[in-house]
């Protein structure tokens, strides 16, 4: 259980981290909390020659609000996201999802930016990012750009992050309590076999729009557009959720066959919507 040798660099600022990344290129990996990266390094599935630790870069951690937008620093830990009064009040879906990641010990070290940038297809946060309409702040030499969650997740462990860019912050529009995350955890890993994040916008007691995102059942998190459209059109939980598997090509694997996965998508979507509507 010993990672291969590497050189350790402690970044002192975002600029320093970017310089180190530019210097070492593909030989380097960025370390935040370490709970996505270190496990694969211990098994030597990843053997980076350089590790750039951004864990102590000031300004990369913390939760604030400005103008109806919640800003969460990339190295903010899951436990702090889950317990934040601001997040609970203005992005309760994120608080719920962050409280489902791994176990309490993992949540004490793992970071929101690390998990999102790792883009594990069974991770919880990507579904929340999509359902919340989050924006990723990607910082490179030339400055920052904003990428929506819908654009950010590209494929298994692949994101829109450039090789010389750092995920520095996540922005989330403040939202209501009409939300829910329903997860079926893998009994061994705790990762989501399926996780459905639902964020509803209501007016006059009725759903005016909905964002529904799914993790676990595909190569990347995905919005369930047919479900969202049905909800916006006034459908109840059951009839909206019936569309959860529409147009998705599930594959058979160790976690179950395609029809089981389609069923999980529908059942968990229904449960998440029903709870969000309560």
């Amino acid at each position, binding site marked *: *259980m010993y990672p291969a040798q590497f050189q350790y660099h402690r970044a002192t600022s975002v600029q320093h981290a970017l310089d180190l990344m530019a210097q070492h290129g593909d030989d380097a990996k960025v370390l935040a909390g370490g709970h996505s990266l270190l496990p694969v390094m211990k098994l030597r599935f990843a053997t980076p020659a350089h590790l750039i630790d951004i864990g102590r870069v000031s300004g990369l951690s913390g939760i604030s609000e400005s103008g109806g937008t919640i800003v969460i620093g990339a190295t903010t830990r899951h436990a702090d996201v889950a317990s934040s009064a601001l997040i609970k009040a203005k992005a309760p879906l994120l608080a719920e999802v962050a409280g489902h990641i791994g176990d309490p010990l993992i949540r004490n070290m793992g970071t929101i930016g690390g998990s999102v940038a790792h883009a594990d297809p069974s991770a919880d946060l990507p579904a929340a990012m999509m359902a919340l309409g989050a924006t990723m702040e990607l910082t490179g030499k030339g400055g920052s750009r904003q990428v929506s969650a819908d654009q950010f997740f590209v494929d298994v462990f692949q994101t829109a992050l450039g090789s010389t860019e750092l995920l520095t912050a996540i922005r989330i529009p403040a939202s209501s309590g009409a939300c829910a995350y329903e997860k079926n955890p893998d009994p061994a890993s705790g990762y989501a076999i399926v996780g459905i994040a639902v964020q509803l916008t209501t007016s006059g007691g009725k759903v005016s729009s909905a964002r529904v995102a799914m993790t676990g059942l595909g190569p990347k998190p995905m919005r369930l557009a047919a479900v969202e459209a049905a909800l916006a059109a006034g459908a109840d939980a059951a009839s909206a959720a019936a569309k959860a598997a529409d147009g998705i090509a599930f594959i058979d694997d160790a976690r179950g066959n395609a029809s089981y996965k389609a069923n999980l998508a529908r059942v968990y979507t229904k449960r998440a919507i029903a709870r969000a509507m309560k």
Partner: protein
Amino acid sequence: MATAAPMIGASIKRKEDGRFITGRGKYTDDINLAGQVHAAFVRSPYGSAKVNGIDASAALAMPGVHAVYTGADLKAAGVNPIPPGWLHAGIQIGDRYPMAVGTARFVGEPVAVVVADSAALARDAADAIVVDYDELPAVTDGPTALSAGAPQVHANATGNVAFNWQLGDADGTDAAIKGAKTVVRQHLINQRLIPNAIEPRACVAHHDSANDELTLYVTSQNPHVHRLIMGAFVLGIPEQRFRVVAPDVGGGFGSKIFIYPEEVVACWVSKAIGKPVKWTATRSESFLSDSHGRVHDTDVEMAFDGNGRIVGLRVNTVANVGAYFTLFAPAVPTYLYGTLLSGQYDIPVIHVKVTAVYTNTVPVDAYRGAGRPEATYALERTLDVAAGQLGVDPAELRRRNFIAPTKFPYQTAVALQYDSGNYEPALDRALTMVNYAQLRKDQAAARAQGRYIGIGLSAYIEACGLAPSHVVGSLGAQAGLYESGTIRVHPTGKVTVLTGSHSHGQGHETTFSQIVAHELGCSVDDVDVVHGDTSKIPFGMGTYGSRSGAVGGSALFLSLQKVKEKGRLIAAHQLEAAAADVDFADGKYFVKGSPSRSKSFGDVALAAYLAHNIPSDMEPGLDSTTFFNPGNFVYPFGTHVAVVEVDADTGHVTVQRYVAVDDFGNVINPMIVDGQLHGGIAQGVAQALWEGGVYDSNGQLLTGSMMNYALPKAEFLPMFETDRTVTPSPVNPLGVKGAGEAGTIASTAAAANAVIDALSPFGITHLDMPLTPATIWGAIQQAKGGK
């Protein structure tokens, strides 16, 4: 002789806990010797491969790397294969060299070892070793390995058959089945389990060249057995120069019984390079190298008369033994399995046939319960299928077939003679605790609302307390299965216990102290228990098969009687009374009828060592060693009931309640016995619902980490509801039976039966374990489609 406050039967808090709760336990990986180097193994990445050559030049060039050795190196140096400890007629043994010689037969088999200054560096160097393999076709499934044209694992085992074994009356069973009113047939797979004691295996070997003495610290359940087999059969080291120490061991569950290649290699390398050698498994290595458990493919035919009474039973099992036999492997699917197939039932005729088959997988051997869970599952699962088919309540069907209490000792149709038993009270108590009649009504009401509650029973029997040496010897064991126990009384009256049993969680330091305190009338704090060190203990067969209390504890009890008797003679001598007139109670010898004329046990102990005033024909000193060889197994039994709810939309199972009523005979420490039971239940339920080792057809283990092999977590389980009946065992002086495996033996069938019971409205009568949501949901869909 009981004291005022009997120690046997008291829930004394554990003496060993002080060091564990403060982080001062001493496990093998906590041991570091001056000048030690670290070993890392290169393991085969293929299920089957020819090893053409090994290039270690890059590894050897790394600073801090001391040496690299291959399987061929050890063979050339005279290291022998590691033998199994149990033989059958016609058994074909595929030689297991400590590291592969020429052919690697499973993913994870050691091919080479490197030793270096640090464990990290050793891993780096192992990664730098280049092995030239030719991958060969592999076979991982038992029935497939028996099929025509299957890849051959060993040249001497034609058709991959390691042995054929049978027990019982083939013709009589055939006739009973042919003449039966109803025959229930069921095919069952008892899946592969991977033990996963939380402490990974480890060893530190140190050869002292000045005295030519070898010391091995190792995660072992039986250090003397390690010494015997490694010394006498594998490495050729005289026993008096070989010390094996099993310090604190973090759980075993069978997996630390066996003699493993890494331990042999560490010993040999230590001598070769003149330095202590340490190795600690990573969890990934544990998955690929600790012997696995179960892996049966079984056909059961259970024949009934018109009254729902079993008239015959035929069982045909293919037992996948993996690539090699480890220590107990030949016994597990035979004498620990076939002999248990009568269960609690009066079955006039039984025949069991077992085909042991080699495959390209990790070896399969004893894992908590070892053969007995497989037998219980086959019986209890089939009985539930039968209950459905016959239209009889599962509790009633069991009751109808119980061996009547008047029939004990009961000779089964599969060789065992049950010493004692009374099965209905345990069943009744379990049904009362779970409120069975009401529960069935609740179940019906829930079904009407689309909720699927399931109730599963398992009435089990276990043969444990391994075991009568002459019996196991006649059946193929290559060793006796007695146990030694020494009572060493010090001049102050304090006591040191030396036991050949080994505690790796069972609490022997406490329970054995209780036996001494009970008998001598002293405090448990006046007693220290020493175990796990061949240099301190006369001999020992170790701890497995729920034998420590029944065999190891009985050895101590008998030694205590000898000590007490010698003390009585001393006391009588000093009290100037006839020995027959001296009694012992509450730690005092006294003259019957005049209790003031007395000597404390401490005074007598001192007198024994001063030897100033003891009978003239008596040797000084006060100690005794007994080798207790039981006359029979002990037979714990009981009834367990699991209550589950299945979410039909997802297939998810929730364990709502778990009730266990067990008969362990007399109980020395109820708190510890309950703890053993709890852990066993969790392991058994986990087999039913979550755990399962899976290989692909190339021999890759798909469940090779805790990321994809699901051990039970706290949130998966409820609080357990337990009770006991007490039928003392007549085969040992303590009247105790084993408790270490019962939970596992009973609970797999109880949990599986509960899930299938929940699914009965869909017409589902059987599913193979683990009963995962995907499996259950798929079966429900199939059932709905079929309607």
